[in-house]
């Protein structure tokens, strides 16, 4: 199982802030989770955003970061605090 969270614009466009995905053999990186989601259809292509940022278990990560079952993966647009 992988928990996926979305924030800000992604959350609104996907109309969801949280998903639970049953673990699939072959998943190796955060990027694989993204690819899985973008194949769900039109709305999900928002995650192909070139400035997409991601976090793994509450730490910033890259799309290359390895995932395993039980992880929490978060996708969000460029941050704009301050």
């Amino acid at each position, binding site marked *: 199982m992988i928990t996926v969270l979305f*924030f*800000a614009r992604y959350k*609104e466009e996907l109309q969801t802030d949280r998903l639970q995905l049953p673990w699939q053999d072959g998943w190796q990186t955060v990027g694989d989770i993204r690819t899985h989601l973008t194949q769900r259809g039109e709305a999900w292509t928002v995650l192909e955003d070139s*400035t997409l940022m991601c976090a793994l278990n509450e730490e910033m990560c890259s799309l290359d970061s390895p995932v395993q079952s039980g992880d929490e993966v978060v996708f969000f*647009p460029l*941050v*704009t*605090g*301050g």
Partner: protein
Amino acid sequence: MIQVQVQEQLFDPGALLHGVHGANPAIGATVCFTGYMRDFNQDQQVQGLFLEHFPGMTEKSLRAIAEQACQRWPLQAVHILHRVGQLTPSEPIVFVGTASAHRGDAFAACEFIMDYLKTRAPFWKKEFTATGSYWVDGRSSDQQAAERWNTDKERP
């Protein structure tokens, strides 16, 4: 020595400035940045601002940025406060205060923290205008400002 706060309530930047010095006679310089909500952005009048964040990560990421600053410069105090939730024009959004024996270190550390906060802390702004509400886009100038610090030099 490092203090990090994330809160919805309005805060008083002047009171925080006093706290950064804290009457410590070893401190020769404090630099305090305060970011305020403007009523105008990208040619539009802005009536309100909503600051979304990722509660699990927000304080952790601010603390990590403060710790990096303390490794780069000799600091006696770092205070970061960032608001979340609903804001109105002229309200303070963020405060970063640094204290050091010498001014150069306090200036560099304060600007470093703001540049990193702008690109590495999980906050997102949504502006409310007469024609609707819009997520604010991240700016490439902020990315560039943060990259200035990627060298070994203490100053960009």
